[in-house]
């Protein structure tokens, strides 16, 4: 254990050094005096931090929109306290929003910020350690009162005691400047305070060379109902921009090279939004109504929120009394001919396991989404983790196989939702879709697909009583889907073992064996739908990195950086986890070493070892945070 910690600490250290070396801000150090140049960057990482009340989530997402519209790739990471509204100025009340954007595809929100905007001492205290050496720190001096300093546990004011010498510190009294700008707005002091975040936004837009006209429209229709606020915020935005424009403040402004993004219409999307859209898309293309039975739980609840607003589609949302009722109502709806969906996170998943067994026995199509979070038990509800994989594969009584797939990014949640539904209806089986608290809330640009290009899903309910046997199977071993209300096909289903054809209760020994075998064969058979695995990088050689789920971006970026350093390694990211892709065993044999990074203690590692009797190198982390690119890169460099 301690051993592990040390390595991971080490990993961190190195990463920080290496990256700060490559840091534009540092490089610039010398020329600070020169007439203000415009730095061209490949990518930049900015973090906005403040009190939960300071509106940093808004500032951050508005900034993302601005860069998105310039065609930059970006990835974000919102990070708010688990408290609903923590007391102001406290360390645990700090809320943050990080964005990385760049000229090429951006995979992650970045390891360490190049620039930090800290609205109060607590925000500075909790976030400074992450900032790159020599990075930019913009501090709202107006909030650095003795009271706030005390709350943050600062003995002395860090803005004055030289403790920030390692950074490019900009002390700006955002509070006062905003107040000044809004002197005549007629707004109350409290209301004026609420405009600070737009001042900060204007300032950063200027510093990073983004126009703000778009933003002005944004503000006007966001506050359409309260025009006085709209104008106040616009004024604050302008003021912030103008302030930054004043040459003497910043030695330079920055410009991230224009991106050559793939043509198309884009929107910014989170994993939970994408999942919701994916299920609606599946329901529409299949022409089958969608029924969501769910009980709220962080970080899965937004899927329920999204779908509950889509009642003008064939979407019913049922907020159940608990997770058991969530999945059971879904089973009832699926029996009724609806596309069953239930969404939850770890603890709720645990509660659903008995009913999943029933779903397996009934062989009805439904999708169970587990937006994983830190465990065990209540664990770390707002944090990212991938530790429910083995539960998904093995966590039921009896021989109870269920296909399991996982999404690799926010927008991939859309495709995975459709894939999950496709498998569910084709094979008449529950399907588990794993995402996690990371991609569920993180936003990235999504190139909106053309509806015509979406995978077809055909569903036919059986209506012909001729020779109907409830458990007779097609070539995929799927039984027929029969809606109650269909004349002449009345039949009973249930959780007791049932006859291979009639579905009536059967205690016959060989029938039980046969049913256990066929349920297993059916799920194993879904493997034939898995497309050939796409390996990034060399088709054989030294090192293959195998990942699943939300680690995709980190691994992909690490692979690129390794390649850039002349270490070409391969990356295979698994969507299908049960069954595993048929060509996987083969692929593994083509590499000398297989590295398996996971945000758990080695669950995919176990599956690979068991299935392929192949030793692999695990890289594990359960700290409620994603891997840093550097953590994966370092391991790659050690192994290749």
């Amino acid at each position: 254990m301690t051993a592990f910690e040390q390595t991971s600490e080490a990993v961190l250290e190195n990463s920080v050094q290496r990256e700060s070396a490559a840091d534009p801000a540092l490089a610039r150090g010398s020329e600070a005096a020169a007439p203000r140049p415009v730095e061209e960057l490949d990518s930049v990482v900015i973090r906005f931090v403040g009190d939960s009340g300071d509106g940093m989530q808004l500032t951050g997402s508005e900034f993302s929109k601005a860069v998105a519209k310039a065609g930059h790739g970006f990835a974000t990471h919102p990070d708010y306290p688990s408290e609903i509204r923590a007391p102001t100025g406290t360390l645990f009340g700090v809320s943050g929003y990080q964005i990385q954007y760049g000229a090429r595809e951006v995979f992650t929100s970045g390891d360490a910020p190049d620039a930090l905007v800290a609205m109060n001492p607590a925000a500075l205290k909790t976030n400074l350690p992450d900032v790159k050496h020599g990075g930019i720190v913009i501090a709202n001096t107006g909030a650095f009162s003795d009271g706030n300093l005390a709350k943050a546990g600062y003995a002395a004011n860090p803005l004055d005691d030289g403790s920030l010498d390692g950074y490019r510190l900009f002390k700006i009294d955002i509070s006062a400047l905003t107040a000044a700008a809004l002197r005549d707005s007629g707004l109350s002091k409290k209301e004026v305070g609420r405009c600070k975040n737009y001042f900060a936004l204007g300032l950063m837009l200027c510093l990073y060379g983004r126009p703000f006209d778009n933003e002005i429209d944004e503000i006007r229709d966001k506050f359409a109902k309260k025009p006085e606020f709209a104008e106040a915020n616009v004024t604050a935005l302008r003021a912030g921009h103008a302030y930054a424009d004043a040459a003497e403040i910043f030695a330079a402004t920055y410009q991230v090279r224009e991106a050559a993004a793939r043509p198309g219409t884009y929107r910014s999307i989170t994993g939970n939004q994408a999942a919701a859209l994916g299920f609606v898309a599946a329901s529409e293309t299949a022409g089958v109504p969608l029924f969501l039975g769910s009980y709220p739980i962080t970080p899965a609840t937004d899927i329920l929120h999204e779908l509950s607003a889509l009642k003008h589609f064939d979407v019913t949302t049922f907020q159940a009394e608990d997770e058991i009722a969530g999945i059971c109502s879904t089973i009832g709806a699926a029996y009724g001919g609806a596309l069953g969906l239930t969404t939850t996170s770890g603890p709720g998943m645990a509660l659903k396991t008995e009913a999943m067994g029933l779903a397996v026995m009934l062989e009805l199509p439904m999708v169970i989404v587990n937006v994983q979070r830190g465990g065990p038990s209540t664990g770390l509800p707002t944090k990212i983790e991938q530790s429910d994989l083995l539960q998904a594969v093995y966590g039921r009584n009896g021989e109870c196989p269920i296909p399991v797939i996982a999404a690799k990014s926010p927008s991939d949640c859309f495709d995975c939702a459709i894939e999950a539904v496709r498998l569910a209806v084709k094979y008449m089986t529950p399907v588990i879709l794993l995402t996690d608290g990371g991609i569920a809330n993180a936003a990235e640009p999504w190139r909106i697909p053309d509806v015509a290009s979406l995978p077809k899903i055909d569903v036919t309910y059986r209506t012909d009583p001729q020779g109907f046997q409830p458990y007779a199977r097609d070539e995929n071993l799927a039984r027929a889907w029969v809606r109650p209300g269909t004349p002449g096909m009345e039949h009973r289903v249930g959780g007791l073992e049932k006859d291979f054809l009639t579905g009536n209760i059967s205690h016959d020994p060989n029938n039980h064996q046969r049913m256990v075998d066929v349920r297993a064969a059916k799920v194993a058979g879904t493997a034939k739908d898995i497309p050939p695995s796409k390996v990034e990088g060399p088709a054989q050689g030294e090192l293959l990195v195998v990942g699943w789920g939300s680690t995709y971006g980190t691994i992909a970026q690490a692979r690129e950086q390794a390649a850039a350093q002349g270490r070409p390694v391969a990356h295979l990211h698994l969507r299908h986890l049960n069954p595993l892709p048929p060509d996987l065993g083969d692929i593994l044999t083509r590499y000398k070493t297989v590295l398996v990074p996971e945000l758990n203690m080695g669950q995919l590692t176990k599956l690979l070892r068991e299935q392929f009797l192949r030793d692999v190198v695990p890289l594990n982390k359960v700290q409620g945070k994603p891997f840093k690119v550097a953590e994966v890169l370092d391991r790659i460099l050690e192994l290749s």
Partner: protein
Amino acid sequence: MNDMTLPVTLTKKDFESNQDVRWCPGCGDYAVLAQIQKLLPTLGIPKENFAFISGIGCSSRFPYYMDTYGMHSIHGRAPAIASGLKVARPDLSVWIVTGDGDALAIGGNHFIHAMRRNVDLKVILLNNRIYGLTKGQYSPTSEFGKKTKSTPLGSIDRPFSPVSLALGAGATFVARTVDGDLQHLASVLARAAAHKGTAFVEVLQNCIVFNDGAHAAITDKATRDDTRLLLEHGKPLVFGKNRDKGVRLRGMEPEIVALDADGADRQQLVVHDESATHAGLAFFLSQFDTPDLPVPLGVFRSVNAPTCDELNAQLHDGARAAKGRGDLAGLLNSGDTWTIG
């Protein structure tokens, strides 16, 4: 149940499945099965539109014996499954058959929430005051001090009154009947079938093997007329072999009065009102129990309220009226979009 297709003439036979009924000889469940098989053909609902959902227990084997759509699900979950089915398929007539353990022990939460939501379900609880299928442990309706396999020294739990619990949860239709009295059983089941919304019927059922005579106090021919109170809407509370006893109020406490021949003091008797706006009366009656007071049988409460499945359908209609039928491309392209190239 509402949108009927052309009337079909069905018979009891049509609702008998090909599975052998596997209850103990003499089990009270047989009577309920027979009555329901008799009732359904009279409802003018196509056979294929019935769905029977159950949990686990002797009582929960019920769906296997009905030649309708049905699910013998998992223990206690029938109300949740049935709610999902009915909300997804308002056109079906969805029935739940459950037991005192299935509905009130493991299934208690789904039970009270079904009552609260007023989903249009018929909930038939076969209350034998014991866990039959697991061979005789006390249940949440077993009398205090009951000696069973799991309580050799007598149970120390106070029993639920299923009727009180249902009313406490806000049920819109609540009734009680008994397996042995076929006529009463049939009439109460018919009333439940006719109710729009969650209709809860407690059937006092005899488990001849593990709890024989549990309801003797009100089934014993000799005494039952004095221990039963047959509820009749709009009628005063009168009972007794010679209908010579009545119930009146002292403050809010019930009090039994002897009625003289001329029935003069019937005026003071409490008059039953199934559809009182205030649920107080129904609950008041639900607390009656032997030996002090007669056990009410019949319909305690029957009031109209919009059903969950109706309201859900209305949400959809409303949303479509407001926004028009959802368009997928429109949805995907909604929100803040930007175009490149």
